[in-house]
Structure formats: structure tokens, C-alpha cells
């Protein structure tokens, strides 16, 4: 029952290079010696890779040693993976019906594949590493029902931005969000991952697209483990149900400095930009980069604007190479980085100076998120971000003139 507090066994646990070292520190303080189950732990280096400071290098070195001494096999070091919320499911660890915790708030991404996945802190993770379980308060649920197909250059990102704009930054605190309707059943896996990735921006504990043939086929192509999908009961109750028509959705932008300050891209042509970031666990997947390339093909980035593109994983990177997307990006004047979270969290590679403005495909536009507290971040889909880079201000990609 919602509100009830239960203790549950964790199926999979994930840490990365920024939350991992603190987890290890707390784990040593607990003094358990050995982790509860090394097969259920996944370690992914993505936030500061390759290390941007000696301190980061030292922390990563320590994490490698911990992985080795604990017999953890699932380490995705530099060059082996990429952004954790892409790599985790690419490697088959996100499975329907399982309980996944990650020491990163965007762990909710795996709800796209029918898992109950949520973010926790480092010490909480150290406790999970020790006993393999934690307490949960059973959330109430919010149903988002969407029908209709997206129009050109409108995407799942625009839908989740619109939803957060409607319910507010804290509109789903402690709640689960379930996504139903033809828009979601027709939506690609990449799109579902984008939607579930951002539920935490509304405060939700988890976002779930009910597992179907499409998501089951994706997971089966990535793991041989038996799958135990769970779906909502027919008589499940919801605190509220919100209805959306995807066909009416235009490209949306979350304006600085809050994620629920959502406007139509067309209204924002007076916002001049200095930087474009296309990447992150929200929108660094192959479909996102294809969309950006479709806008940039035959066009050049506006003089004075810099564009940073970070494919979300080694796999996405290779696919971009095969499809020639990087040629398009280079010809347009963009820079392509390795798979990293760097720019999104103001970690490294692309920090903003005071007074600068960035349009980003990531998930947070908090004050100072990508650099100086006097800089500003606007969140958008990859087509809007790319198109804005071409004209030097925010634009609806459908309003771009022919190259």
C-alpha cells in the first residue's frame, strides 16, 4: 500500500567515478570487508573521463583497486563504456521487473525498460553493498497517458519537458510516474529512455513504461538472463491521470534557471547563445545524434557559437562513425568529445563563463550547473539545440531556412 515502508532486496547496484569513491569510503567505515554480491555491482567511469584533475585520477585509481579486491567483474573503465545511464542498459543490466539502485539521480532512466530504478546517495549505496537491501516508502502513482504521433522535430524530450512544465519541478515528489498510451507504445527505446531519465526533475522516485514486446526484445538482445516483467494491476489506482496529445506538441525549451520554466522554442528567438551541448544521459543516443545531424547537414554553426557533441557511449560513438554523422558535425564546425557527462554537470570540457548562455540537450538548468553561477542554461531537444547553434539564438528547428 502507498505510504507503507518496506525492506526490499536490491537486484542490481551501480556507482560511477564521482559517487563511487564516497561509497567506498563509507563501505570501509562500515567495515564489512566484502561486498554482499560482486555480481550485482556495476561500476562505470563517466563523469570526469579521462580525468581532468590529479584528484579525479586518484579517485579513479582507488575505485579500480576496490573493484579488483572485491572481485567485481562489471567495471566499465575509460574506453570501455561511456555515460552510465547508456552503458548500464546497453550491457544488459537493466531488466524488467528488477529493483535497481544507482548512486546517481538519473538511475530512473531504466524504467524505460520496465525496471523499478531509483537514485540513492553514496552512504546508502555502501549499506546496499554491505547487506544487499534497503528500506523504501511505497510511492503513490501518477499516470501520464499520451496518444498521437510526434510532428517533425518534436520529440519525446519535448513531451517530458511539457509534462514537467505542467506539473512543476516538485510535481511528482515521492511518486512513481507510469507512461501509457499509443505515443509510448510507438516510441523507440531511445525515446522512452529520454522520458524516464527526466522524471527525477519533477521529483519522481521512478518512471516506468510498462514492458512490452519492443522493450523485451531490446533487453533480450543484450542479456541472456531470464526476464520477469511486472505490469500494473488492471485495478491499479492512480493519484492523478494526465492526458497528452503528442501531435499537438511543438519543440519545447526549459528556460534558465528552472526545469519547469517551459516555453515553446518559437517564443524564445531573442535568447542569444554562446554554446550548444548535444549529449548526456538524456539525449546523447544514436537517434538524438541522427536528429542533430539531419539539422546540421549542409549548414554551418553561427560565428561565435561553439557546439560540443558527446555521444553517450562507445557503442553510440561507433555507430556515429559508421553512419558518417561525425563528418556532418565536423563540416558544420562542431567538436566531438569522448562519451562523458563532463559538460552537463559543469565537470569538465565545456564550462560556461559569467554571462554566457548554453542551449543543452541535457536535463538540468540549475544556477551554475554548467559553470559560472552567472551563466544560463536552456534545455531542449537535439534538433532545437542544433538549429539554435546555426542561427546563434534559440529557434524552432522547423523555422530554419533551407541550407
Amino acid at each position: 500500500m502507498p505510504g507503507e515502508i518496506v525492506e526490499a532486496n536490491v537486484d542490481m547496484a551501480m556507482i560511477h567515478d564521482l559517487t563511487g569513491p564516497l561509497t567506498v569510503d563509507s563501505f570501509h567505515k562500515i567495515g564489512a570487508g566484502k561486498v554482499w554480491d560482486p555480481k550485482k555491482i556495476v561500476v562505470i567511469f563517466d563523469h570526469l573521463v579521462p580525468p581532468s584533475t590529479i584528484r579525479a585520477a586518484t579517485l579513479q585509481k582507488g575505485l579500480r583497486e576496490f573493484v579488483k579486491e572485491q572481485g567485481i567483474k562489471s567495471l566499465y573503465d575509460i574506453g570501455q563504456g561511456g555515460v552510465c545511464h547508456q552503458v548500464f542498459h546497453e550491457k544488459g543490466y537493466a531488466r524488467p521487473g528488477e529493483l535497481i539502485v544507482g548512486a546517481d539521480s538519473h538511475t530512473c532512466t531504466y524504467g524505460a525498460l520496465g525496471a523499478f530504478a531509483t537514485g540513492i546517495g553514496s552512504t546508502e549505496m555502501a549499506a546496499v553493498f554491505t547487506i544487499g537491501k534497503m528500506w523504501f516508502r511505497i510511492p503513490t502513482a501518477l499516470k501520464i497517458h499520451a496518444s498521437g504521433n510526434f510532428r517533425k522535430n518534436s520529440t519525446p524530450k519535448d513531451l517530458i519537458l511539457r509534462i514537467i512544465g505542467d506539473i512543476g519541478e516538485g510535481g511528482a515528489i515521492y511518486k512513481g510516474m507510469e507512461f501509457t498510451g499509443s505515443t509510448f507504445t510507438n516510441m523507440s527505446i531511445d525515446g522512452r529512455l529520454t522520458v524516464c531519465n527526466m522524471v527525477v526533475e519533477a521529483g519522481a522516485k521512478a518512471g516506468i513504461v510498462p514492458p512490452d514486446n519492443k522493450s523485451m526484445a531490446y533487453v533480450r538482445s543484450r542479456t541472456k538472463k531470464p526476464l520477469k516483467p511486472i505490469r500494473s494491476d488492471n485495478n491499479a489506482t492512480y493519484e492523478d491521470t494526465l492526458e497528452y496529445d503528442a501531435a499537438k506538441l511543438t519543440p519545447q525549451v526549459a528556460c534558465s534557471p528552472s526545469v519547469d520554466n517551459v516555453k515553446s522554442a518559437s517564443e524564445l528567438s531573442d535568447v542569444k547563445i554562446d554554446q550548444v551541448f548535444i549529449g548526456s544521459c538524456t539525449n546523447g543516443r544514436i537517434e538524438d545524434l541522427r536528429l542533430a545531424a539531419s539539422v546540421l547537414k549542409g549548414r554551418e554553426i553561427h560565428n561565435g557559437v561553439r557546439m560540443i557533441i558527446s555521444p553517450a557511449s562507445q557503442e553510440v560513438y561507433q555507430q556515429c562513425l559508421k553512419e558518417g554523422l561525425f563528418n556532418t558535425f565536423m563540416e558544420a564546425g562542431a567538436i566531438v568529445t569522448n562519451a562523458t557527462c563532463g559538460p552537463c554537470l559543469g565537470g569538465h570540457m565545456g564550462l560556461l563563463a559569467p554571462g554566457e548562455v548554453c542551449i543543452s540537450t541535457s536535463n538540468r538548468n540549475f544556477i551554475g550547473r554548467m559553470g559560472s553561477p552567472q551563466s544560463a542554461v536552456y534545455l531542449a531537444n537535439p534538433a532545437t539545440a542544433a538549429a539554435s547553434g546555426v542561427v546563434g539564438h534559440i529557434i524552432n528547428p522547423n523555422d530554419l531556412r533551407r541550407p
Partner: protein
Amino acid sequence: MILDIFGKAVKFGDNVNTDVIIPGKYLELIDPEELGKHALEGLDPKFTQKAKDGVILIGGKNFGCGSSREQAATALKSAGVRCVLAESFARIFYRNAINVGLPALECIGISKKADEGDMISVDLRSGTVENQTTGTTLKASPLPQFILSLLEEGGLIPHVRGLIGKR
């Protein structure tokens, strides 16, 4: 952990996120004292000065939203925050605060009933919050018994040490 807490109020608005509590560039820091030096510097550069003698942090809705970084709760505690009272909390921050031994209490109405500098006392057992400056009393949602015990033990690390017989 003492379950009766008091201190001067330091007040912020809605949606105070973990990026402003401790920006990404400091996440390489593990030492609580180092983290504490940068707590909330993006929102109020004087915060650490105000907090050093021990304060009660008052927040609005959705306090601690954003990243899972536990460093946010650690930084506040280390800067001198004795307790956070807010209209509501983002769930990861809430858990992190309790886990590192920083009491966090959902107290509806607090953002209207307390001003910066007011003397606030909190009884964690009953959830009674008293503004001694204005003489008003509010009832916060009391913490479940297991969370109170966790705080009394000093946070999640000593608690789990107890569970595995390491005490």
C-alpha cells in the same frame, strides 16, 4: 545525537537544489570540512559565515532537488546546519540527510512562520517546532521510529555496523 535541537534560522525559498548546495566542481572532495567551506556559496556567499555557530535551515518546497550527491547533505551538516525544516523534500536528499546524521523534517507552513534570524527549537521525537522569537508553534510530521533510532545512532554507517555486529 540530541533529539532536542535549537538554533537561529537561515532561510531559503523553494526548490533549493543540490547543485547550488554544492556545485559539481567540488564533488571530488570527500573531506566533510572541505565540503562545508563551499556549502550554498552559489546562493549566499555569506552562508558559511552565518552557519558556523550552528543554525536551523529553513527551506520551501522540494528542498534538495536534483542530483543524488550526498556531499550536499554532508556540506550543510559540516557548515553548521543542525536540522533542515522544509515544506517538502526531494527524496534522495532526504535520505542522504538522515543517513549522514542530519535531521530533516517536513514542516508544512514553516516558510511562512519563520524569518531569517528567528530562534527555532525542534523536538525531533514529537515533531514540535517552536519559533521562540515569535512564540508560534508548528507541528511537523514526526519521524518514524526507525529513522529516529538511525539518527540517534549517528547515521547509517553506525546503524549498519550494528546490523553486522561490528559495534
